[in-house]
């Protein structure tokens, strides 16, 4: 192994000219170059990346009967989460979190998600700087896609992702369209022996360069509001430039990368049946797993629907959202029976999502072990549009930075502490998150390694 490692232990870079430009072509890295822990590339010491995912479901868990009695690792999963039993040792459940309105008007089915993701109660027009974007600012560079957003509902605005400048990142609605975007003609297999940069990509970059070179000229003529918009525009242009630049370089090998099969035809239109939405969900989960494993991105975001889930079981006239308000609480069970069925389906979806990541082996661990899934919702008890007792679930240990397998009672605490814990685990350099009563100044110590 030693001699072989000496021969091929370093990446040799070929530099050449392509139509006047310079491109770098690296030799493939073989898995014998991983160190004994399977944790790193032996010679460069570059770690296998830690990835991040957000996962949103609408309408929470209902009244507080779901809160487990025990805490720490000795607790019973809530009934609606029973499907997650096979991976309970890899997840954490936070119960009791609060969203504080601080006297501001509350946007039902919006404020909860807004505070979880941005730390602020604000006019939804001003929604900016979501948790996933703060993470992708740290770990999203150098990938074809800084982050990816999808929704199962068919409505592209069902996304909680927004950059710091307020640019909302809308969601892809069709698994087939997502596949084409990631694994279509522009995909370069990171494990391919040969790599030939596409000369058309260089030419495409030149069109972008011509635009960006006019930036200063344009900025000079504008007022502050328009400059901010133009700045956001150029940030998006730069993202595409980066993407094209990445396409010009031989990608680093990703041993677990396998190009997935093409999903079935799907125009991405709106769906209202639970079965249709969850079928899309499972396709998205597998595509995301492949995208992460193939190094196309390090951050992915999925929503099943918006907060006011309009999904129905077949034969139902009322949507989940209508039921959440109108269905009486069963006196024997202590919860809304029909709504409970929706929650079970969503949690089964979370199992599918996590399992897709867990099914990817990277060395002696799985991709799920090296990532963090942040699962959140709009209301703890949506029946009353309550801002109390939110359930939040994290799956994965963020590469060993978080303990897992725990129920963490978080009663009375701002939900932003859970958000902050997740972000700090992902290496975001922030000491606090949120404003007013929603300000969190410390991570949740029980889960931090």
């Amino acid at each position, binding site marked *: 192994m030693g001699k072989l490692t000496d021969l091929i232990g370093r990446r040799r870079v070929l530099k050449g000219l392509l139509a*006047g430009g310079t491109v770098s072509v690296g030799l493939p890295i073989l898995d014998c170059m991983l160190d004994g822990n399977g944790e790193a590339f032996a010679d460069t010491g570059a770690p296998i990346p830690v990835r991040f995912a957000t996962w949103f479901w609408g309408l929470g868990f209902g009244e507080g009967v779901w809160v487990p009695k025990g805490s720490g690792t000795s607790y019973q999963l809530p009934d609606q989460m029973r499907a997650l039993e096979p991976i309970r040792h890899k997840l954490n459940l936070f119960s009791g979190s609060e969203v504080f309105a601080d006297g501001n*008007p*509350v*946007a*039902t*089915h*919006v404020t909860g998600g807004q505070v979880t993701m941005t730390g602020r109660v604000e*006019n*939804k027009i001003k929604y900016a700087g979501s948790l996933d974007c703060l993470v992708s600012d740290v770990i999203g560079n150098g990938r074809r896609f800084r982050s990816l*957003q999808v929704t199962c509902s*068919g409505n592209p605005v069902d996304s909680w992702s927004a950059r710091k400048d307020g*640019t*909302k*990142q*809308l969601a892809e609605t069709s698994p087939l369209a997502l596949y084409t975007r990631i694994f279509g003609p522009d995909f370069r297999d990171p494990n391919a022996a040969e790599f030939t940069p596409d000369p058309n990509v260089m*030419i*495409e970059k*030149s*069109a972008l360069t*011509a*635009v960006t070179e*006019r930036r200063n000229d*344009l900025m000079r*003529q*504008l*007022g*502050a*509001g*328009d400059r*901010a*918009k*133009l700045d*956001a*525009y150029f*940030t*998006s*242009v730069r*993202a*595409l430039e980066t*993407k094209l630049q990445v396409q010009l370089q031989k990608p680093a090998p990703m041993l677990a990368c396998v190009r997935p099969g093409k999903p079935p035809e799907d125009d991405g*239109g*709106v769906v*209202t049946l639970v079965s249709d939405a969850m079928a899309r969900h499972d396709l998205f989960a597998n595509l995301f797993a492949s995208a992460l494993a193939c190094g196309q991105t390090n951050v992915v975001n999925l929503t099943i629907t918006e907060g*006011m889930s*309009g999904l*129905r079981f*077949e*034969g*139902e*006239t*009322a*949507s989940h959202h209508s039921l959440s308000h*109108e269905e*009486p*609480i069963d006196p024997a069970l202590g919860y809304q029976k029909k709504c409970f069925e929706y929650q079970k389906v969503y949690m089964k979806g979370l199992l599918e999502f996590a399992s897709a990541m867990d099914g990817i082996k990277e060395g002696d661990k799985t991709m799920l072990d090296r990532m963090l899934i942040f699962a959140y919702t709009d209301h703890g008890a949506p*029946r*009353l*549009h*309550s*801002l109390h007792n939110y359930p939040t679930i994290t799956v994965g240990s963020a590469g060993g930075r978080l303990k897992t397998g725990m129920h963490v009672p978080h009663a009375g605490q701002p939900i932003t502490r859970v958000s902050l814990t997740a972000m700090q685990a992902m290496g975001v350099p922030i000491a606090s998150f949120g404003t007013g009563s929603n300000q969190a100044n410390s991570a949740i110590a029980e889960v931090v390694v």
Partner: protein
Amino acid sequence: MTIFEKVEIDKTMNGIRHFSVRHAKSLSVGACLLVIAASFGARAAETNVSADKPTSMRISSSQYRRTIADIFGSSIVITARFEAETRENGLLAIGALNNSVSEDGFERYYEIAKDVAAQVTDKRHRAVLIPCKPKSATAGDEVCARKFLATTGRLLFRRPLKNDEIQALVAVSKDTANKKKDFYAGISTSLIDLLISPDFLFRYRNIEPDPARPGHFRLDSYSKAAILSSFLWNSNPDDLLLKAAENGSLQTDKGLAMQVDRMISSPEIESGVRAFFSDMLGLDQFDVLSKDAKFFPRFTPDAKRDAPEQTLRTIVDHVVDRQGDYRDLFTTRHTFMTRALAALYGVPLVETTDNARPMRWLAYTYPEGDPRAGILSQASFVALYSGAGRTSPTIRGKNFRLNILCQVVPPPPPNVDFSLIQDITNPKFKTVRDRLTAHRSNPTCAGCHRLMDPVGLAFENFDSSGGFRTTENGVPIDTSGEWNGVKFSGPVELTKALHDDPAVTACVARKVFAFASGAMPSGNSAQWKEIQTKFADSHFNFLQLMRAIAVSDLLYSVPETRVSLLEHK
């Protein structure tokens, strides 16, 4: 879609006032209405926006498509999807003022630009769209490239290109042409550059010193041309309008009026009317509308496709072709049907087109007294503002107030118990009216629900798909209510009761202005009053409203902060 809009008192939001939940809780219905009325007439901030407010508007997807079709012809096909637009204060146009371009959105524009450029330069189109011939098809040709790019760039950027802009584009074109040994590949790359530029994707309000008022500033001619063409034709300025900008006549009252009258008399005015009403009525939301086919088998894909078009044809027929009173849109018996819609509505339509051919649109007039008259009885309202399986009078009432009257009802406060609404199998509450009446007995809820539910209940004869029904769970549907003291039964009587309510015409005027400019107008300026007077004097002729706004200085006002920026340069 949210049932309730987020609410806050925000002094910087022009025109549509919002109410805090704190206020709604403690208000009686009457007080709530008074507050709405007061806010509606309240003096909001002038359109001289603050330094933080943008003035540029992102091109809409329909404007993009129209512009490409106008410049390159309708055989250039755009199949890719644009990024979804966002609605603010009830209009996508206001969203366009605040929206920039996301990463995904830019990628989409980029793909669309590549697709358009490839078609424009392909063998089928190049001879027509690139009239000059290069010296060699396998190399760059600066002269021909310059000619094409300058001509096309002027139409795309809504102004002549500067020399250095043309130079840069020609350089890119030459570079690509030489690398790929293909002149047309070079043109394609430069065209992509034009199509992804902010100068095309955004319409800017550029200002210049006003020679008639030394020390003051005005919008430059090209900015005025851009506002006019996007407003009246939903497209970029044509060559005549650009020439009027170039020769300075757009800066004169007479020259401006001449162009406005030309544009309003043109068949293209239909595009502007359609674009406005599509925005005002939220018809883009049909893209995300779904009905359960088991409950509503007649809500077929064809019916869904045709429903918004039916309303737009009804509107164009009434306000453009007949130049009727705007208020009569809500009671008109004249409409248009396809076979799919006739099946949905249950009306007899004799249509003899073969099954294999596209369905034709046929004029249809409801009989006198038919409750299905008026655009609000069409699927574009009653189906659009319903769930997939059930109606929601609350949603219909809320959107009636927002879309037609510019009145925003606040969202429900948190921690309200909805259990008064029993499930639909409860024999005590057979109709949704029964259920909502029980709900309105809760004083916390009553204040806002009394604003929405009676209006929504007037439309309960229309099920979730827009089909007509007379019973619910075996019980006859009661659509009676009261509006400003006038009793009504059903939607047509409701809209007749509304006929003389000044909120109806005041609201559409405000929305038209916001559609044109991206922001609601100031309520009480002399210029605004003049516009409203002209609208009223014309018997609420919608085209005259468009004209009044298009020739008003109010549409071309210069933000004070822009002025101060220039003065400090």
